[in-house]
C-alpha cells in the first residue's frame, strides 16, 4: 500500500479496489452494537484543518476514533503564513508529537505534498485548494458501486465548476482508474484550459449528456464566480446547468444524482431533486466514514516502523 494519499492518482486499480472492499467490510462493522475497533490503538491521527470544513473533519475524526486512534484536532482556521506559524513550523511540531498520520485540509493546492516532505507519518489530503480531494472521490466511487453494482463501464457526468473543483479532479482520476467513463459538463469558462489532457470527455450541453448517464454528479458553484464573469447570472447558470425535476426526467430510470455538498439549492440543484430517492447525498455522508476508516487502516496498518 502507498504511504500517503495526496492524489487519487496515487491509487492504481488494485489499491483503489482494495480501499473500496475494505470500506465495505468497515460498513458491515458499523452495524454492530460495539462500533469501536482496537486496530489503531496507540496511533495518533492529527486533523490539520486550515479551512473550515466541519463535515470533512468530523468524518475523519469519527473514522479515526472508531479504529481507536488518538485524535488531535489542530484547527488552524483563519491563519495564513503571513500571520503566525508557517506550515513547515507546524509540520515540525507534529513531527515532534509523533503524529502517525496527518489529515490536512488547506486552501493552497499542493500543501499536502509540501507537508509530506517534512513529516515521517502518512499524509492524507482532505482537500487542497483547487487541486484534489481523494477521499471524497473514494466515497463517491463507493456510493456508485453500492447503488449500481459496478464502476467498470459506468457513464458518469460531472457537472458545473470543474475549473475550481478538487472533487472533479479526484473523481476524474479515480473513476478512470476504475473503468468508468466520465463526461465533464459546464460552461466553457468553468472547464480548465488543458482539460483535453484529462481522461474524460467534455460537453457544454447538459441536456445532451443526461440521457446516457448512469450517474450525474452536480458540483457546487459559488455565486461569487459571477463577479469574475464566469457566467452572466445565477438565473442563466441554473437554467443551462442546474438540475431540476424537469431535467432529471431525461435521465435513465436507474440513474443516480450525487452532490459532494454543501449544496447551493436553487443554483446547481433544485430542492426536489436533492431530496428525491435518486439522490445519494445522505448516503455519501455515511459512506464517507467507512471509506476514511479504510484509508486510515490501509495507510497506517501498512506502515513498517
Amino acid at each position, binding site marked *: *500500500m502507498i504511504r500517503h494519499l495526496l492524489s487519487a492518482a496515487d491509487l492504481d486499480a488494485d489499491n483503489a479496489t*482494495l480501499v473500496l*472492499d*475494505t470500506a465495505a*467490510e*468497515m460498513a*458491515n*462493522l458499523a452495524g*454492530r452494537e*460495539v462500533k*469501536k*475497533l*482496537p*486496530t489503531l490503538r496507540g496511533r495518533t491521527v492529527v486533523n490539520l484543518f486550515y479551512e473550515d470544513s466541519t463535515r470533512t473533519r468530523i468524518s475523519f475524526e469519527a473514522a479515526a476514533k472508531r*479504529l481507536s486512534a488518538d485524535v488531535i484536532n489542530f484547527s488552524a482556521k483563519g491563519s495564513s503564513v503571513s500571520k503566525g506559524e508557517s506550515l513547515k513550523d507546524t509540520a515540525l511540531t507534529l513531527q515532534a508529537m509523533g503524529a502517525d498520520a496527518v489529515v490536512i485540509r488547506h486552501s493552497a493546492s499542493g500543501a499536502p505534498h509540501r507537508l509530506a516532505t517534512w513529516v515521517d507519518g502518512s499524509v492524507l489530503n482532505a482537500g487542497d485548494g483547487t487541486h484534489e480531494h481523494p477521499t471524497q472521490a473514494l466515497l463517491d466511487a463507493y456510493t456508485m458501486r453500492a447503488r449500481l453494482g459496478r464502476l467498470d463501464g459506468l457513464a458518469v457526468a460531472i457537472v458545473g465548476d470543474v475549473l475550481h473543483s478538487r472533487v472533479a479532479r479526484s473523481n476524474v482520476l479515480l473513476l478512470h482508474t476504475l473503468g468508468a467513463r466520465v463526461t465533464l459538463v459546464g460552461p466553457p469558462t468553468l472547464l480548465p484550459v488543458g482539460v483535453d489532457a484529462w481522461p474524460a470527455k467534455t460537453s457544454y450541453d447538459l441536456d445532451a449528456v443526461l440521457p446516457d448517464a448512469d450517474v450525474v454528479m452536480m458540483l457546487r458553484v459559488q455565486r461569487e464566480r459571477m463577479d469574475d464573469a464566469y457566467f452572466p447570472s445565477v438565473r442563466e447558470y441554473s437554467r443551462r446547468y442546474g438540475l431540476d425535476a424537469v431535467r432529471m426526467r431525461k435521465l435513465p430510470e436507474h440513474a443516480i444524482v450525487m452532490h459532494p455538498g454543501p449544496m447551493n439549492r436553487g443554483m446547481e440543484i433544485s430542492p426536489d431533486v436533492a431530496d428525491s430517492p435518486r439522490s445519494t447525498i445522505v448516503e455519501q455522508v455515511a459512506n464517507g466514514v467507512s471509506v476514511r476508516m479504510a484509508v486510515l*487502516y*490501509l495507510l*497506517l*496498518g*501498512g*506502515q*513498517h*516502523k
Partner: protein
Amino acid sequence: MGHPRTAGPAAGKTILTSAELARVVDRIAHQILEKTEGARDCALLGIPTRGVPLARRLAARIEAFEGNAVPAGVLDITLYRDDLRLRGTRALGPTSLPTDGIDARRVILVDDVLFSGRTVRAALDALKDLGRPRVVQLAVLVDRGHRELPIRADYVGKNIPTALTESVHVLLTEVDGLDEVRLEEKH
C-alpha cells in the same frame, strides 16, 4: 491471505498425509461431541484463512456422526491483530456469525495451527465485541508449542513439537488444492 502454498517435492517433511489429516479431523469432531453433550448449543467459528474450511469440515463430520447440524461461521480478526505494525496491512475478510447470534452459546474457535497464541487472543477480543457467549473453546488441527500467552486448546488434532527455526504448513484442498501438513525449515 489465502495464497496457495507451492507444494514442491523438496519442501520439507510430511507430518500428516491427506488420509491422516481426515482421521485427525474426525477425531476432533468426536472429542467435541463427547465434551459438549452432542454439540448442543455449539457454534464453530473458523479463523481465516484455513480455520474457515476446517470449521466447515468439523461441522459436516459432526452432522455425519450425530445427525445434528452445527452452525459454522467465520471470525475475521484482522482489525484486532497486534502485529499490524510489524506485518503490514492485510485485506479484510468478512465475519459471518450464525443467524441467531452467539449470545449464551458455546463458541468453538477453529484454527489450523496454534503457535504463540496471539491469533487466539485477537479472536477473543473480536468475539467480545460481537456478543457474549456462555463458553468459548478452541479447536486446532496442530499445536506446535512456543506459546507466548496463557492460552491452551480444548481440542487438539495433533501435537507437533517444533523448533523455532521450523514452520508448520497446513494445506487444505479448499485453499491449497490438496490436504497435507508439512514441517519446513525456515529460510
